[in-house]
Structures are given as structure tokens and as C-alpha cells.
């Protein structure tokens, strides 16, 4: 990270009072240098991503088991979902992943304006994902009685265990949506810090970390979408 050319930025100690936070950022007192600190943060984030994968793997295990136990209920439940909304949301998330990666690149090149634009697009894509999920999927289905477990009262159910299907659907997409909300909070926090010029070519650890997190949120949806919407 420290290898990136910074000559086009104003350097600390030049008497310029507009020295940004990222320029004067040294590193935590317990680190020998900024590279070690950055590497450590990345190892930490990757370990955290491993815990996320394992969290969702429990959900995928439950899905696989119930597919084996009640294939016709899972197939029937899946047929209630409209692949077009799921597909649109997949596209929305993929765009947001791209703009997140671009925002990090912009910060590395000190293109602060474009970094902000890309972060904003990412933020609104996340909001759009949740809006589509809520308005076109959760609310209509809930209204028809397609609800999880004890709340299930869809009168036209044709198979025996559709309430279990809706349990799996709501819990897995709900946990994913919670992660999207968490991502929005993090991206908003990045926007505030980016506005204060906290990130630049020599210091963008938080951007990198949130970016990696956002990609895993995207990746989980990439697996949820075909399993829930496309497989019959």
C-alpha cells in the first residue's frame, strides 16, 4: 500500500494546513510499521469472512436436508417465487459490488470525488435491494398468508410442509437482509469518513475491509438466488 505513488498529493509538514487525515496517519502505537498494520487488518477481515461463510453454511445445510426430506414441498415453495425479482436484485447487488471495488480504486488513486460517487451508488443499490425485496416480495407474500411456521395460513397450499419452506426462505433471506442493512451502515460510515478526507492512497484500510465484507454479502446472495428461485 505504501508503495503507491503519492507525489500528486500534498505531503505533511509542507506548511499546508489542509493536510488530510490519511496523509498524517502513521500507525497504531503497537505496530512496527503501517504495512504490518494493514496486513493484520486484512487477515482479520478474511477470518471474519470465514465466520460469515460458516454462519450461512448452517442455513445451507438445513436447506439441503429439507430438500431431501420434502422435495415436493421445497419445489412447490420455490415455484411461488418470481425469478425476475430475484434476478433483478442479483443485478443490483452485482452493480453495487462493482462500484464498491471502484470506490476503493478511486481512493487508492486519490480520486476523492469519484470515490464518493461510487460509494453513494453502492449505498443506494443496497437500499434498492432491500426496497425490491420488501415491496415486491416480502409484503405481498406475507399478505397472502405465505408466512413461516405457526403464522402460515396460505389457503391454497398443495403440499404438506410449505410452512417449513417459508421458514427456511424467510430466515435465510432475512439474515442476508440483516447483513445488507449492516453493510449500509458501514458504507454510510465510510461516506462520512471519506467526506472528512480520512482515506487516501496511503491509508484506506477501512475501505478495503468494508469492501471485502460487501463482496461476501453479494456472494451469499449469489448462492441463495439459484437455490431458492431457480432450482425446482
Amino acid at each position, binding site marked *: 500500500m505504501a508503495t503507491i505513488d503519492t507525489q500528486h498529493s500534498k505531503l505533511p509538514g509542507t506548511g499546508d494546513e489542509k493536510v488530510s487525515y490519511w496523509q498524517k496517519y*502513521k500507525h497504531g502505537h503497537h*505496530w512496527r510499521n503501517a504495512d504490518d498494520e494493514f496486513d*493484520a487488518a486484512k487477515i482479520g477481515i478474511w477470518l471474519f469472512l470465514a465466520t460469515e461463510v460458516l454462519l450461512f*453454511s448452517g442455513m445451507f445445510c438445513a436447506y439441503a*436436508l429439507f430438500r431431501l426430506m420434502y422435495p415436493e414441498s421445497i419445489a412447490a415453495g420455490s415455484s411461488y417465487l418470481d425469478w425476475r425479482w430475484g434476478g433483478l436484485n442479483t443485478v443490483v447487488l452485482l452493480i453495487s459490488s462493482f462500484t464498491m471495488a471502484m470506490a476503493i480504486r478511486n481512493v487508492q488513486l486519490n480520486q476523492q470525488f469519484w470515490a464518493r460517487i461510487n460509494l453513494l451508488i453502492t449505498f443506494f443499490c443496497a437500499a434498492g435491494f432491500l426496497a425490491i425485496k420488501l415491496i415486491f416480495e416480502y409484503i405481498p407474500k406475507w399478505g397472502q398468508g405465505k408466512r*413461516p411456521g*405457526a403464522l402460515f395460513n396460505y389457503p391454497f397450499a398443495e403440499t404438506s*410442509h410449505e*410452512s417449513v419452506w417459508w421458514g427456511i426462505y424467510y*430466515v435465510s433471506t432475512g439474515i442476508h437482509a440483516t447483513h445488507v442493512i449492516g453493510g449500509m451502515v458501514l458504507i454510510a460510515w465510510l461516506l462520512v469518513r471519506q467526506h472528512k478526507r480520512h482515506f487516501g492512497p496511503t491509508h484506506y484500510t477501512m475501505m478495503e475491509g468494508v469492501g471485502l465484507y460487501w463482496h461476501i454479502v453479494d456472494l451469499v446472495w449469489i448462492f441463495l438466488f439459484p437455490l431458492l428461485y431457480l432450482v425446482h
Partner: protein
Amino acid sequence: MTTVDNNLDKLAGHGHHDEGSYLTPKYGPIGTVWDWMTTVDHKKIGVMYMFAVLFMFFLGGFAAIALRIELLEPARIIDGELTGAALKYFPGGGGENASIASAGNAYNRIMTMHGAIMVFMFIVPGIPASLGNFFLPLMLGAKDVAFPRLNLASWYVYVFGSMFGVLSIFMGGVDTGWTFYTPYSTTTAGQPQVIAMVLAAFILGFSSIFTGLNFIVTTHKLRAPGMGWFDMPLFIWAIYSTSIIQVLATPVIGITLLLLIFERVLQIGIFDPGLGGDPVLFQHFFWFYSHPVVYVMILPAMGIISEVLAVHCRKRIFGYRAIAFSSLAIAAISFLVWGHHMFTSQGELGAMIFSFLTFFVAIPTAVKVFNWIATLYKGSITFTTPMLYTFAFLFLFSIGGLTGLPLGALSTDLHLHDSYFVVAHFHYVMFGGTVIALLAGLHHWWPKFFGRMYHENGARLGCLLVFVGFNVTFFTQFFLGTQGMPRRYASYVDEFQIYHVISSIGSFTLAFGFVVHLIVFLHSMFLGEKATQNPWGGLTLEWETDTPPIEHNFHGDPVLTHGPYDFDEVVPPGWDPKDYPLPEPAPEGSKH
């Protein structure tokens, strides 16, 4: 000039000018409390963890003694009078109008309280979060853990989660057992406190992940210059292996407990067979976490034993690499054996495979034990309290490990499972292993913690009481188990009473031993003689800084000049390694 803003100042500013002990208060009383509450210093967080964890141990131990009092006498109705129900005044026990059922209800709640507190709030965070937090950076020669604020967050999450656990007790207690097996845990009537307890375990998982993640990164990135992987003390290897398990296993219990809460609130039907769910799936999920976590409990204990043993018999540890790799091997195998907790609820082939895999854990474990025994050979053994506890560990843990073999074999397990034999087995491993090692570590590092020595003979007396009390309590239970006493029961047939009485008397002795230790610790804190920098003559880096350590851990950057167990090379003959600092290392190849 540029001024560093407050946010950075918190991490970058302290130390340097102030080289006092980390315990020296820098502000007034309120300021000092605030300083501790907002500290990012791993030493203070380790001490806070230690007090929190020991408090939970006290709560769980209180429950254990209550159980042993109840079991002194079987609950009976004689001439319309209820006898032997000592717990009837506890929540749910029925009080004056108690029946056998209501007294049993109180027993179930206290038993769950004992199990859940001891597992989730004491023994899992116990060693890594207290001793690990304090000594991992010191032993690595680092100024702090990799993510100091995450470390503090972990403590707060731990306290927050524990509060939910205690809250569930005040709400009337949980009677599911610490394993929360479905469908009982999802259907047991009118118990919002079940949700509180499950939520407690869920929240505590985060603190466990935070600690583990922090330690892995610290070990990778913050070793002192010159310290390669095989120059690390074995305690670090053990904590590192533990952390891997914590990070990889805990998320699975997270999703499991979340699904359990949804199951209870919304009846989503994933675990409840009445709704089409599969309760065995819960057991698989639960043990996929809870078996590896058994090694989260025991691996740090093994790390402590490796340190204490080498220092207190002044000898290079035998088979350093074998012990280091066996820690990693245990961590790896731990993920493959969860099915042995559910031999009877799966198919025969699955049970056979899991039984076969279970025996693999015995190999790295035995590698460690044999290496420790070999280290003792021709060592200059000192019978200090840490060393006495190490001997206790070797003795008790071997019994615990060997009694695991008949439980891992399908034919014998069919008769022994869910009996007191299992109870005795895991207490020999968890108490005889982890708690005994924690006590060894506490005494070994006590001078470094607080800068004062403890009263050696007082601590030896405590050690004797704990050792005798523990064996009387739990060895009896092997007999109870083989004769058919099932676990988790509040009452029993009359033939078992003599064993239960002996076991209860043992538990009172054990509790008395802890009171002696408490007195010794309190005495040491206020009246103990000042400890020197290196009272035992250890060669790991934590002994190369002041006692208690300065706020910034080391004066200058520590550079590694010798290995952690190079007693032969570094300490000249006739020289007491307590006389720190040691002379310059002997030239290459001049072994004594």
C-alpha cells in the same frame, strides 16, 4: 505542526513518557475506573476478564454445591411428608407445598444453571481471555494485541451476554440442560427465560470469535524480531490452535441458536418433529460447535502445563515440535468427531465412523502427555504450587482421557452413555484438566499479574484440598455410573445413597479448597511480599519485563536472543535463573 487527533491518540499516544506499572493509577478514583473501563491495554482487559470469569465460576460452583446438597438424600414422601428435597426453596421448587415433581423442577433449573454458566461463561473464555489476553502479547514481545479496541469490545460483549444468562436465572431459570436439545427447549411451557439463556450463549459466541480472531492475527503479525514460529512458547501454540477452533466453530452455534430462537418464537419447523422438522439436525449443529469447543477448553490448559512444567523443573521441554503440532492436530481432528455425542441417534455406519475417528484424538493427546513425562526425567523439579498442580493435571487428565476410551467405543458406550460415568469422565477432563491447569497458571503468573508473591504453604494446602476433594467427588461417580445411576436425575434408589454422600462430602472439601485459595490470593494482593522480576527463572519474554509489567510492556523493543526453553544453553551451571538478568548467552555449541 500537525496534531494527531484524539482517535489516534488513544492508540498512539500513551506510554513512551510514562513507564510506570500498568496497575499504577494515573487519575483520581473516578478517573481510574473510567480509565479501566475504556482501556485498550490487553493487560487490564485480561485482568478484568479474569475477575469476570472467576465470578462466573463462583456462581456456577454455588449451583454445583446446591446440587450436591440435594443429592445427599433421595427425595421421598414418607408418611405424607416430603424428605430429601433440599432445593424446594429455590425458584420453581414449590416451597412449603413442594411435591417431588416441583423439587425436581428446581433441581433441573439449578443443574442447567451450573452447566450453562460453567460452559459458556467460565470455561470457554476462561484461560484464553484472562491468561491468554495478558500473556500472549507479552510472550510474543508485542506491545498489545493486533486489535486492541476489538479486545475491549470482546469484554463488553462477554459481560452483556453473561447478563442475559443471569437474567434468565432471575426470570425463574431454565430447565433444558445446557445443551438446549429440541424439541424440549422449543416447547417447554411458558419460558421466555429459555430465549434469554439461548440469546446469552449467542452473544457470548461473538466475544469468543473476537478474542480468537485477535489472537490469530497477533500471533501472525506481532512476534518480536527474531521470533520464528518454532521459537514461540508452547502456550502460544496452544492459544493459536484454540483460536482457530473458536473462529471456525462458533459461527455454527450462532446460526443454530438463532434458528432455535426462531423455532421457539415462530415455530418455523426446522427442529420440531411435530411440524416436520428434524431434532437430530439440531444435535448435529450443536455438537459440530460443542465438540470442537471441548478443545477450546482443554488446549490452553495444555499450553499452561507445557510452560509451567518446563520452568519448574528447569529443563528444555521434550519434543517441542511434537507438542506444537499436536495442538494443531487436536484442533483439526476436533472438527471430525462431533457424532460421538449422538451415537444412538444416528445410523450404525455413522456411529462406527465417528467412533473410529474419535480414537484419533487420543494420539496427539497422548503425544503431549508422554512428552511432559519425558521432560520431567532428570529435571530439577521444584515442588511449588504451580508444579504441584501440574502433577495433579497429569494424574487427573490421564484418568479423564483414558475413561474417554470406553465412551468412544460403541459397545461399552451403549451401557455407559447418559450415566454418571459420563459425568465423571468430563469432569475429570474439564475440571481435572482445565481448572487444575488454570490454577497452575494463576499461581505461576500471579506475581507477574499483581507484583506480589502468594503464600506458598497456604496455596499448597489449597492444592491438597482441591486434589483430594475433587477425586472424592468424582471418582465415586465412576462407580455410580457403572452401576446404572443415570445423569441429570434429582433422586435415586436407596442403594446409591452411600456413593452420593461420599461424592457430596468430596464436593464440600473441594469448595473449602477454593476458599483457602481465595484467602491466599486476597492475602497476597494486600500483604504479599513484593515479587522479583523473574521469581521462577523462566526464559520466556514475559519475565524480561518489570513485575508487574510497565504500561507499554517492555523498555524498548525486545529482541529474541534465546529460545523459550534453552535452560541448558542460557543458564550456566551453578547459576540460579531467578537471578535476573542472566549473563550473556554461552557461545554456540558449548552445551553443558
